[in-house]
């Protein structure tokens, strides 16, 4: 049954998450250290920190979770586990889809726990913290989709590694615009959230197909 195999896939991802947990912690540590650096660089002016807080937290979250994107397919591709799973009866498109979901649950959601602590450093008002968490849930899902596209694209790239992160950052521009927009008092909160949801759905729709195309291409030329 396909559904059993899907559960099996998630079980394996959970095991791998558990054995890679040090990676995750070092990414979160990177996030906090860069926040400290920002605070020291800007000076401890409370009003200033409050004004720029959400923007800084969002961009640092983005940068530190792009750190983990290189690992997205690399291991499974190098030891051909992708081929084995495919031979087990799951199409590449579905593998990508499951991989995106598991990346979201096992890599992005733990970051969520660190957001309230980060907000304390910037003395952000409670409604901004709420906005940040809500937009980050949607935004990190988009990040997982984009990460899947860029990581699969980078599988055979031996010369220019930074190009994958460049593409993630490029397509993330609208997400940042709308996420920060939720703090604007005159903009409509609900419609911004549904805009973000719309973008998430678009990328969720196209990323299985494009990532699977890249993976097939990479397997063929390995």
């Amino acid at each position, binding site marked *: 049954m396909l559904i059993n195999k899907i559960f099996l896939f998630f079980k394996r991802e959970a095991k791998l998450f558990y054995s890679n947990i040090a990676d995750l912690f070092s990414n979160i540590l990177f996030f906090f250290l860069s926040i400290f650096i920002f605070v020291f660089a800007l000076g401890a002016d409370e009003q200033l920190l409050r004004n720029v807080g959400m923007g800084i937290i969002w961009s640092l979250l983005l940068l530190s979770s792009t750190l983990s994107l290189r690992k997205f397919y690399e291991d499974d591709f190098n030891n051909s*586990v992708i*081929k*084995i799973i495919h*031979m087990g009866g799951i199409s590449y498109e579905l593998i990508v889809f499951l991989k995106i979901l598991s990346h979201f649950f096992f890599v992005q959601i733990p970051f969520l726990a660190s957001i309230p602590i980060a907000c304390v450093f910037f003395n952000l008002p409670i409604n901004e913290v709420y906005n940040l968490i809500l937009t980050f849930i949607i935004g990190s899902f988009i990040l997982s989709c984009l990460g899947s596209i860029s990581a699969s694209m980078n599988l055979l790239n031996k010369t220019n590694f930074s190009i994958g992160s460049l593409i993630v950052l490029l397509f993330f521009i609208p997400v940042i615009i709308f996420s920060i927009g939720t703090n604007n008092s005159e903009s409509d909160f609900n419609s911004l959230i549904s805009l973000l949801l719309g973008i998430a759905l678009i990328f969720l729709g196209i990323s299985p197909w494009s990532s699977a195309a890249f993976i097939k291409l990479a397997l063929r030329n390995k």
Partner: protein
Amino acid sequence: MLLINNLSFSRNDNIIFQNLNLSLSNRSITQIRGKNGSGKTTFINVVLNFLESKTGEIFWEGKNIKKNIFNFYNKTTFIMDHNTCTRKMTVLDNINFWSRLSSSKLTKDEIVLLLETFNIQKYQNIKTMYLSSGEIRKLELLRLILEQKKLWILDEPYNHLDDLSIEILNQTFIDHINKDGVILFTSHLKPSIDNLEVIDL
């Protein structure tokens, strides 16, 4: 059972192989032999539809495999020339993953027995990254028995194996043939198996 008809493959206009015909019936074992770089691995990958052939078709039980590729995969165990176990998972986790992915009906006791015959039961709960390459290779070959498929396709199965393990592997091959199985493997060696058909690339 497996019929390969007029198969050719080329990469960037370099012809790797051309007009290859092959018919594997039940209870047969076939070796693809050739020098390094003669296209053995490529041939295996074309047969398994991981690479697109230029001309020709492949039939499994009378049906073109492209019509329903998962039907074909469902009857096939593929051992690659490199290791496919996940290095960060334990031996037992790897085995559980493989057996459930292929919906194998082996019980836990049988698996433990298998591990004992291959002499790796003491590493059960150790991550595979700490095993030696010969032990990892044996773990890889466990999949043959674990998945209980009819068609075995192996790419360089003798790599990293000691003499004793080679003998066990040959014996496994013969057992499988006697159970109506079909085996296709590549190697540059000359293993001593009865009724071995050899195709030179």
